[in-house]
């Protein structure tokens, strides 16, 4: 059972060391604890501060109320009092503690009085102890003061002792986690004396109420509470010290408490009792709510009360757990056994006699079944509140559908029975009424079924039992049958109703599971970030029954990526909350402890790789906290969402990396292709020239001629390549200015053919120009270049002895120019690629390779003139390639432009 075993091997307990490590770099907190106002906490605190300051410690006063007391004010004179921050609140200006200012000032020790103080709305935190936590996190030591009545777990005890309701409370954990707690103690007599002498400040209007408070018995009780609480704390510190220093036990047995929480009004008291017991035993504790079927909490008010109670337990330091099952006490005890629970606390309300006789409470069942486990039963005091919330719901049922349906069903049963009685003389009509009861149970649930049972009983009696039309029963055996009928009707109706509720609960659960499943499937199905964000927003908005927003990190900044419904805007308060959630990686905004006045609640989207952004939700009703059910769904959803976002981001990154690698590969292929094309002719030229110079005389005449011819050819090849490259660059940069001359395509064809003849003397070119070819608007030199490139290309990819054919004709509003070769043609899949830059067909038997630019330039020119170009292969007789250029005829261009 002992889960927190001590360091039997003489080594420090890892938990203790971890805890110590976590506190390094954090400021130390010292709390001055008093039993009541006026014991001199502030005075003691300031006295200590002054002493430290005299020793050379940098002390600053964040906030101290002197309440007009001269001695206290005198102490303040010598200390550095930080300016307060004015905060507007309901037409007044409150002077509040300035957290940022204090952190910026960075004293060694900061004094902030009144730990339990509540900040005005719109502050960063609702409570001062949260401000103090920020200061501690910044590495500044803090001294503060609080009265024992403000401790959350003691607040109800204090109310009971003093009759004064405590509003401002501080969670016990704040005190437990303090590095030092010092009790400022004077005897009750002394305090009453000081009060009488007027040394304790009391506001006029509160004087009378407080007079009742400052009685000797009250003060004695409070003093005892304070001293005991501190003694517990000292005990804890001692144990902590022993653990850290690996000093051998005897250790106190590690107790673990469990408290059963329900929606009843007794639960808060049981929870507080458990908290006190747990603190006293230095035990961890867990608050458990057990329900028959998950999600079957039919009464929303009861569900809300359970949630509120569990939240109270959480505030008091408990872990909270939901259990569900059909056998509640067994479920509770199974959990207790698994979790090594040593003590169980349950509440037991007095209830009315009927409830005690007919229903064994959960507490009774636990008591009966528990073995080897201590069960504490906290008895409730008389609680008139109890019925006050039960009645409305019961009344609601009477006037509600349940009763109406029951009445209608019984009415129908009466009619049917009459009919049966007179038509076929059926005398035993109880089955007809039982059917009505069952129908009510199946359609409307248990309550309706019971109403139907009672109404049936009355109706049966009234209409069918002698004497008819009275409620009296003549024969005793008839009475017995009637009572049996009532019993059977109620039992079967109740059972059927419960079956219906169970099936409803199962349906609801299935719906929830399906919703979550659908959501996950939608997330995993969408590869695009936008779709994922959309799905997250819609689902979150649905859960919160309000609005949702997703903000993603963009480096250090957050930017809104998706909002649902789509027209929402964030105010400055919401932005602050979102940033805070992002930076601290905790929940902020509405319903949290940081910036709770923001209209949204923000939750960090965290994965193992870090934080991706935040998801925000705005509820429909700000007063209602999220139901625990929705809360749990939301947690699962946010986790899934973060993973899905990360996944799409990774997909994006991978795609980008692929694209980058691909473009890098293309770039290096291009570079090596250009460098090869430039270097090869240069090599030939340089090699030939150096050969001529070195061996000029020793070479034969024919060798010398050949080398000189080689130099010329290679220089021309280089020139072609360079000018192609330049043309391409100009075309790509859009720097080619297309002149709009009237151009005769046949002229361009003739001059291009002449140039080809000069370069390749043996090549035959057949030119056919059909009559009636119109002019085109364009740049004559570009069109000539286009034709030349086509011929050059055809020359390259066909055997030298074959001829090339150029054909020009008119086709409607277009001039069609085609160049055909008799080479091996182009593979079908490459027909489009030949126009890509630096694309070269593979086969060329030893003749100089092309630049891979010629056809790309052709396409550039054709496009610039509003035309098209494409390749056809085979062109004729199963071989060769035809390149077809279509340019708009001049009139057509003009016609289109309406000139």
């Amino acid at each position, binding site marked *: 059972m002992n889960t927190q075993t001590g360091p039997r091997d003489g080594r420090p307990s890892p938990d203790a060391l971890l805890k110590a490590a976590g506190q390094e770099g954090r400021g130390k907190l010292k709390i001055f604890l008093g039993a009541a106002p006026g014991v001199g906490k502030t005075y003691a605190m300031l006295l200590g501060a002054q002493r430290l300051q005299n020793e050379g410690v940098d002390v600053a006063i964040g906030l101290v109320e002197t309440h007009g007391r001269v001695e206290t004010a005198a102490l303040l004179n010598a200390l550095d009092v930080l300016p307060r921050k004015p905060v507007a609140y309901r037409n007044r200006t409150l002077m509040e503690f300035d957290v940022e200012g204090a952190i910026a000032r960075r004293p060694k020790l900061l004094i902030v009085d009144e730990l339990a103080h509540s900040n005005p709305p719109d502050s960063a935190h609702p409570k001062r102890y949260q401000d103090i936590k920020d200061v501690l996190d910044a590495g500044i030591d803090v001294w503060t003061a609080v009265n024992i009545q403000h401790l959350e777990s003691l607040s109800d005890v204090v109310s009971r002792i003093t009759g004064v309701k405590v509003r401002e409370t501080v969670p016990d954990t704040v005190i437990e986690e303090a590095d030092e707690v010092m009790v400022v103690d004077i005897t009750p007599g002394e305090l009453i004396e000081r009060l009488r002498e007027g040394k304790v400040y009391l506001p006029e209007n509160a004087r009378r109420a407080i007079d009742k408070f400052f009685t000797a018995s009250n003060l004695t009780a409070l003093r005892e509470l304070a001293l005991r609480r501190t003694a517990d704390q000292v005990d804890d510190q001692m144990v902590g010290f022993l653990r850290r220093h690996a000093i051998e036990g005897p250790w106190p047995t590690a107790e673990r408490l469990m408290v059963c929480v329900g929606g009843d009004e007794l639960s808060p008291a049981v929870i507080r009792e458990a908290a006190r017991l747990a603190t006293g035993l230095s035990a961890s504790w867990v608050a458990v709510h057990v329900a028959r079927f998950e999600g079957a909490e039919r009464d929303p008010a009861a569900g809300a009360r359970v949630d509120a109670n569990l939240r109270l337990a959480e505030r008091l330091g408990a872990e909270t757990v939901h259990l569900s099952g059909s056998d509640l006490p067994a479920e509770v005890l199974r959990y207790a056994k698994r979790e090594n629970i040593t003590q169980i606390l349950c509440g037991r309300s007095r209830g009315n006699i009927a409830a005690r006789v007919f229903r064994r409470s959960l507490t009774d069942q636990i008591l009966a079944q528990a073995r080897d486990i201590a069960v504490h039963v906290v008895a409730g005091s008389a609680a008139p509140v109890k019925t006050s919330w039960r009645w409305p719901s019961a009344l609601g049922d009477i006037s509600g559908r349940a009763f109406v349906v029951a009445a209608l069903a019984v009415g129908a049963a009466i009619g049917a029975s009459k009919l049966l009685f007179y038509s076929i003389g059926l005398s035993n009509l109880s089955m007809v009424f039982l059917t009505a009861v069952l129908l009510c149970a199946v359609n409307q649930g248990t309550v309706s079924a019971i109403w139907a049972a009672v109404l049936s009983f009355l109706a049966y009696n009234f209409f069918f039992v002698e004497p008819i039309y009275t409620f009296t029963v003549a024969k005793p055996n008839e009475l017995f049958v009637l009572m049996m009928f009532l019993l059977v009707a109620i039992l079967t109706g109740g059972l059927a109703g419960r079956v219906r509720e169970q099936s409803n609960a199962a349906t609801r659960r299935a719906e929830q599971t399906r919703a979550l499943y659908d959501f996950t499937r939608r997330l995993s199905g969408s590869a695009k970030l936008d779709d994922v964000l959309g799905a997250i927003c819609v689902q979150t908005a649905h859960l919160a029954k309000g609005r949702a927003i997703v903000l993603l990190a963009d480096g250090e900044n957050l930017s809104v990526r998706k909002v649902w419904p789509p027209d929402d805007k964030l105010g400055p308060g919401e932005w602050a909350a979102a940033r805070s959630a992002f930076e601290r990686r905790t929940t902020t905004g509405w319903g949290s402890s940081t910036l709770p006045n923001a209209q949204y609640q923000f939750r960090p989207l965290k994965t193992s790789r870090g934080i991706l952004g935040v998801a925000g939700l705005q509820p429909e009703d700000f007063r209602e906290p999220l139901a625990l059910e929705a809360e749990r769904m939301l947690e699962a959803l946010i986790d899934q969402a973060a993973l899905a976002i990360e996944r799409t981001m990774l997909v994006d990154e991978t795609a980008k990396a692929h694209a980058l690698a691909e473009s890098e590969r293309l770039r290096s292929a291009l570079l090596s292709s250009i460098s090869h094309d430039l270097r090869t002719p240069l090599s030939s030229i340089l090699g030939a020239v150096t*050969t001529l110079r070195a061996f000029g005389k020793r*070479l034969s005449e024919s060798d010398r001629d*050949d080398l000189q011819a080689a130099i010329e050819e290679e220089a021309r090849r280089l020139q072609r390549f360079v000018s192609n490259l330049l043309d391409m660059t100009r075309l790509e940069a859009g720097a080619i200015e297309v002149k709009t001359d009237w151009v005769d395509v046949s002229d361009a064809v003739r001059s291009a053919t002449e140039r080809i003849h000069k370069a390749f003397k043996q090549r035959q070119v057949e030119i056919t120009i059909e009559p009636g070819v119109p002019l085109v608007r364009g740049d004559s030199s570009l069109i000539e270049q286009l034709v030349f490139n086509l011929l050059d290309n055809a020359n390259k990819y066909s055997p030298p002895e074959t001829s090339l054919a150029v054909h020009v004709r008119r086709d409607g509003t277009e001039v069609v120019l085609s160049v055909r070769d008799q080479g091996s043609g182009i593979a079908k899949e490459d027909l489009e690629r030949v126009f890509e830059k630096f694309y070269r067909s593979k086969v060329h038997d030893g003749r100089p390779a092309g630049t891979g630019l010629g056809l790309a330039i052709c396409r550039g020119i054709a496009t610039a003139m509003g035309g098209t170009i494409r390749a056809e292969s085979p062109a004729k007789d199963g071989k060769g390639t035809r390149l077809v250029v279509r340019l708009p005829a001049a009139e057509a261009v003009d016609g289109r432009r309406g000139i």
Partner: protein
Amino acid sequence: MTGLRILVVDDEPQIHRFLRPSLIASGFEVIAVETAAEAIKAAATQAPALIILDLGLPDRDGKEVIREVRAWSKVPIIVLSARDRETEKIAALDLGANDYINKPFGIGELLARVRVALRLSAQEAQETALYRMGGLEINTVIRKVSLNGESVRLTPKEYDLLHILVRNAGRVVTHRQILAAVWGPAHTGDTQYLRVFVGQLRQKIEADLANPAFILTEPGVGYRFADAGE
């Protein structure tokens, strides 16, 4: 050197056009081929004294020719490459090519490399005991180095480094080859050792550190000891 047969492998006919007359004029016989397959066949059947090999061949990568030829022959191979990517050249040299020359090149440069490669392959058989070049004298028997008659003190590693460079004088030795020979095969990636030791060695034997006369840097590839014959 008359009659030595040189195999020229290049797919560009223009290269053959000037290499053939120059090599013939220098007294070599020339076998000209255009593909890797032809190259391997010619290397095996016609016993060339040296191979001039273009790395970019139409059928296979030129490096594969080196790998195949090196499997059975120590014939010197000089690599021609239009590729300016260092890795290609280094890979070729590490595969066993003896030297490289970047396109475009002058014929004189190529012929000088051809002569160095042929001379070194002739020397390969016996290790010379004494190297003399410039004012530098290296006695490999007693591991002594002197510069202009004065003894130079070298650490053992510096001596090994100088020795491998001198033994291959005129020819490029890759970083990898030097590291493997001096520091061992486990250190072939540690080029920083090399830079430090080459720096130290130059301080001891070079007159002008800005323009080294003995140890020449082949950027990104390796080092070359200046050839006395050039």
